[in-house]
């Protein structure tokens, strides 16, 4: 069959006609680097859509987290009603109920002075009823989402933009075009942003949606911080894909060790993690809604929102520029 097809080629081949002949008569505008760059952004966005292993992992994590949050919401576990002061003891709701029952008996015997007890118990009941936002924010958003999901989701897309081309050995098609190398790197980054921002914000939105009312409140307050962190993570992992041949592995190691371990360190060590600045923005946003930071300020040493935004956006810009320089100087001899 193949030889038959090759036979057809004999008829089809036109060595006498050249590309120059074909276009000589047409009024063709001269090639433009800007046009080529814009097309590369569009092409890269399309190619980023191909679901690869890391994106599938990100999707799986999203589905798992969504299910977990939905189950917790269905079980009413976002409030402090079921928390216990000690193992085997009564939960908070049971404790308040017992105290209210005791207060009722006491007030029947001696009505004077029971007003204070009732006020305290009512306040405790109110605090428990309103605790859903605090519990969801601290356990889900600050810990799991910022510490784990956000970096993993970001690296799933960001390491694919260049890493996918390197792995598929298709980088040669870009490097042999008349495009400056820094422009290729920047185009890949720009093409990556809609995907990574869309997935991170969309994923955060879905997780919040599954949490019900506290989730809706958390999304409204925290999405700017998620967007800022996404930019910084995207720039960092994109740089890793320009430097390392196996960027996904390096990025996972970074996410697990540096972000998780350093992000939990006391003092100033945590300041080299992206998660720290993200949490600072979130603490600040939540503080206006009555949710204080989980740790004492003297221990956590948070920075003000302006500093946090400056660091996140500054890191994004600096890493992007470093990546452009690295990519412009690097040879990818094993990948072309």
């Amino acid at each position, binding site marked *: 069959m193949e030889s038959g097809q090759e036979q057809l080629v004999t008829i*089809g*081949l036109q060595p006498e006609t*050249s590309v120059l002949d074909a*276009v000589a008569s047409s009024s063709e505008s001269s*090639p*433009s680097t800007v046009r080529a760059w814009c097309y590369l952004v569009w092409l890269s966005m399309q190619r980023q859509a191909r679901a690869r292993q890391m994106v599938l992992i990100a999707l799986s994590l999203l589905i798992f987290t969504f299910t977990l949050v939905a189950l917790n919401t269905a079980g009413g576990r976002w409030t402090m009603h079921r928390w216990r002061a000690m193992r085997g003891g009564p939960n908070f709701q049971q404790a308040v109920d017992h105290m209210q029952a005791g207060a009722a008996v006491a007030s029947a015997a001696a009505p004077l002075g029971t007003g204070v007890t009732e006020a305290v118990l009512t306040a405790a009941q109110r605090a428990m009823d309103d605790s859903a936002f605090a519990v969801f924010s601290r356990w889900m958003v600050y810990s799991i989402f910022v510490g784990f999901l956000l970096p993993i989701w970001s690296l799933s897309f960001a390491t694919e933009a260049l890493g996918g081309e390197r792995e598929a*050995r298709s980088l*040669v098609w870009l*490097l*042999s075009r008349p495009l400056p190398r820094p422009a290729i790197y920047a185009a890949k980054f720009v093409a990556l942003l809609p995907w990574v921002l869309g997935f991170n914000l969309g994923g955060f939105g879905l997780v919040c949606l599954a949490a019900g009312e506290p989730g809706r409140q958390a999304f409204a307050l925290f999405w700017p911080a998620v967007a800022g962190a996404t930019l910084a993570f995207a720039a960092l992992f994109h740089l890793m894909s320009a430097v390392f041949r196996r960027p996904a592995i390096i990025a996972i190691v970074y996410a697990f060790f540096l972000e998780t371990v350093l992000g939990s360190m006391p003092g100033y060590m945590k300041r080299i993690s992206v998660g720290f600045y993200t949490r600072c923005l979130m603490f600040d946003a939540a503080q206006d809604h009555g949710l204080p930071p989980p740790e004492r300020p003297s221990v956590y040493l948070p920075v003000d929102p302006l500093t946090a935004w400056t660091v996140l956006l500054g890191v994004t810009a600096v890493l992007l520029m470093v990546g452009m320089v690295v990519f412009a100087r690097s040879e990818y001899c094993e990948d072309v």
Partner: protein
Amino acid sequence: MPELLEPADPRGGSGALSVAPPVERALQTEPRPAARVPATAPLEPPLVFERVSKWYGPVIGVNQVTLELRPGVMTGLVGSNGAGKSTLMRLATGQLKPSLGRVRIRGLDAWSAEAKRHVGYCPDVDSFYEEMSGRQFVEAMARLCGYDRGAAVRRAGAALEQVGMAGRAERRLRGYSKGMRQRIKLAQALLHDPELLILDEPLSGIDPIGRQEFVALFRHLVERGKCLLISSHELEELEKLTDHVAIMARGRIAAVGSVAQIRELLDDHPHSILIVSDQPRELAGMLLRLSDVIGVELAEDNRLVVQAKNPKRFFAEFTRLVLEENFQVEHLETLDDSTHAVLGYLLGGGGR
């Protein structure tokens, strides 16, 4: 006088064959600082390697290559796997940077984006954007050259027609045969009508009919003044394409010129052959009677080092002599690396 010039070893090292005065010397007498070269200098050659070396860590890929290609010439680059052909081509297309020396395309640094406007590159990698059709891929490559949609469609169509893929370009690339993929690679190299075409093993996977077509196409491009550098590990294949051949061995250009010229030079070039025999003295005496033997040196362990000209004739006579006189030859080896490589190719063997 061939257009392709190259001193295989700038030090005039052993075994290096050259068919014309070295470009290196010409370059030394005519310094051309990069800063003074205008972006579109019309007199600059399409491709110049100036004392180029390339290391991969401790391994040397290309060693002190000086080479100049001129318009309207098709040059064949032949060498075994690992000889440095692909490295040389990647240096020429700006995929790699030289560790030493300079690679210039029309006076521009080959690493620069501007230089790539003058180059069409057909790499040896077989990776594409597999989800695309052949036409979509070539159009995408045209758009990445900066053409608008209309121009890209026109150029891609013309390039596909030129390589005989116009009727089959709508299929997805992942379903293409090796030959069809080679044609698509060639189409994307032609679409911006470059002055210099760097084609890495372009005939690999092409059937005999297709090869004839490609040969016709390459000749047509040369007639139009294009400069072609085509690599292959088969000299016979390249001989059908062009009379200008550069033989690479161990990162160096071992010989350059037409095949006939190389053969002629090789015949005149005395080279050393190591022979181990059980009767070295008797064999040495017999060998000295052969007309092509210049000298014989007796060494330890029954070894002989023979200086001989005209290797083809020498080996024929040596074989006859050994058979007639019933000598036991335990080992036979050409000692000169470059000569060994050239011999390997000219006599139809390998040689690195």
